[in-house]
């Protein structure tokens, strides 16, 4: 019962943050609601017993990625977005389409996925076991990901570097 209450509470916060992200016109407000969504998702992961994922969610997503977003918003001095013809068309077709889509997903899940339940911490995911999986069964993907991150760092530096100015002659 307590589990259900906690799930519904954090789920409501999560959905409210996601809807607020869509309603706000200023990017910084959207970024802060995204932080709320990610924080309450971390709580949902804890309810599912995934402590490692919850910690990484807070550190990587709510910490690093969102700091990067806020930094870029501040750097570019992004203001309120203006309405255009394209955005009105997208609102007219996008919102009903998404509503129909999510209702369809919810109906299919409720009808066909059975009513199996998970208790709090049904699947303990201690960091030790995850680390064992990561460095034994999934060692190759792990190494490939590290190469990907290295390439991404270099790409970001090259892309964000200011255009080359003609070198001053002494």
């Amino acid at each position, binding site marked *: 019962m307590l*589990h259900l209450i906690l*799930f519904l509470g954090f*789920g409501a916060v999560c*959905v409210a943050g*996601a809807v607020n*992200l*869509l309603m706000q016109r200023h990017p910084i407000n959207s970024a802060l609601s995204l932080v709320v*969504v990610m924080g309450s*998702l971390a709580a*949902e992961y804890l309810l*599912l017993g*995934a402590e490692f*994922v919850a910690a*990484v*969610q807070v550190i*990587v997503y709510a910490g690093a*990625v969102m700091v*990067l*977003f806020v930094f*870029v918003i501040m*750097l*570019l001095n*992004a203001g309120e*977005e*203006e309405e*255009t013809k*394209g*955005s009105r068309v*997208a*609102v007219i*077709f*996008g919102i009903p*389409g*998404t*509503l129909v*889509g*999510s209702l369809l*997903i*919810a109906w299919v*899940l*409720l009808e066909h996925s059975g009513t*199996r*339940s*998970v208790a709090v911490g*049904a*699947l303990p995911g201690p960091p030790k076991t*995850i680390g064992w*999986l990561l460095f034994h069964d*999934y060692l190759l*993907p792990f190494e490939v990901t590290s190469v*990907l*991150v290295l390439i*991404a*760092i270099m*790409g*970001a*530096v090259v*892309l*964000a570097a200011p*255009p080359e100015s003609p070198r001053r002659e002494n």
Partner: protein
Amino acid sequence: MVPISYYLILSGILFACGVTGFLIKRNIITIFMSIELMLNGVNLSFVAFAAEWKALSGQVFVFFVMVVAAAEAAVGLAVIIAVYRTRETLNVDQVNLLKL
């Protein structure tokens, strides 16, 4: 005890919100945030299925998704900075030509 389908519905709602934001937003940074929202919804369904089938590899995949999303955020925001430097706008409707 919470049925697993509730978690999946929550993840579907988050994904749908991300798709809607991707469609209706005109600021390139907000569009990027909608993509992150979609990735978060998918992560939640990964963890829910991992709990249902008692398979920890689902959580390992969430870890990989997070790493790739972080790399994507770094490169994507660098692209946004480059776009802003050449066009001086963040509105995607004004960034519709490859040519300057």
